């Protein structure tokens, strides 16, 4: 077992354990801060999939943007929700959450059995791309080609996303504005 695989397991375990903690803890603040760890672990996993630029984007947008936004909303909104969450003193998975836990476990079983049936490493197009040398190597520079593709081949979705982002900016500002009338 090479060092890469061991590091991958460490990173995956970090991600999954912190995600489990996020899901199981009763304390909302702790769950939000543990979500940081999950996102960093995911960025590490992206690096193992040889997608450096996506990993950095994940850190910048998710950790820098989304989590700060979540923290803001949470501090602006709920003082008494927080109190109620804490006084419940939940067990790891209480009786009320049993059906959802069963649902999630069954869904996980379905997904895993599907993955083992499909055998993704033996798919035809993947075998083709390995044969043609169309796969990333660990020593490749991945970002240059991504930038060129983003500006040529994927220009239309890029522009569509930028327009959507502007609409979202206006919409979110409009929604969260203090209403004087109406």
């Amino acid at each position, binding site marked *: 077992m090479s060092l*890469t695989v061991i590091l*991958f397991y460490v990173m995956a375990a970090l*991600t*999954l354990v912190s*995600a489990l903690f*996020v*899901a199981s803890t009763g304390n909302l603040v702790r*769950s*939000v801060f543990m*979500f940081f760890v999950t996102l960093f672990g*995911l960025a590490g*996993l*992206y690096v*193992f*999939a*040889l*997608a450096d*630029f*996506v990993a950095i*984007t*994940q850190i910048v*947008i*998710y950790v820098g*943007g*989304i989590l700060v*936004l*979540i923290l803001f*909303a*949470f501090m602006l*909104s*709920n003082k008494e*929700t927080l109190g109620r969450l804490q006084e419940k003193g939940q067990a790891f998975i209480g009786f009320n959450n049993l*059906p*959802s836990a069963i*649902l*999630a476990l069954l*869904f*996980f079983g379905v*997904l895993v059995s599907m*993955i*083992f049936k499909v055998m*993704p*490493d033996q798919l035809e*197009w*993947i075998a083709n*791309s390995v044969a043609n040398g*169309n*796969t990333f190597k660990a020593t490749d520079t*991945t970002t240059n*080609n*991504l930038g060129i*593709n*983003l500006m040529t*081949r994927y220009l239309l*979705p890029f522009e569509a996303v930028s327009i*959507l982002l502007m609409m*979202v900016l206006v*919409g979110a500002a409009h*929604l*969260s504005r203090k209403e004087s009338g109406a």
Partner: protein
Amino acid sequence: MISLTHFLITSAALFSIGLYMVVAKKNAIQVLIGIELILNAAILNLVAFGRYDKLNNNGQTFALFAIVLAAATTAVALAIILNVYRKYKTIEPDSINQLKD
């Protein structure tokens, strides 16, 4: 080189945890975090398959788009949550039970 199965199983586990959070949690912000987990599982799949497309960067490009869309979703959802809190003084999804005031 880590096999694709490893990535897919990790992402399946993340998806299930997110599904559990969406169904079980009694707080809109935690439901939102669950949705983020599900989106991240999908992005992990895109990136893992994108390793086999060096020429066109399909997987990585759409992973980037998915990250941007997730950011947009979160911004609007949090604005809606703030509005709901202003009206109902709670963000528990079960207690929000009317469409008009």
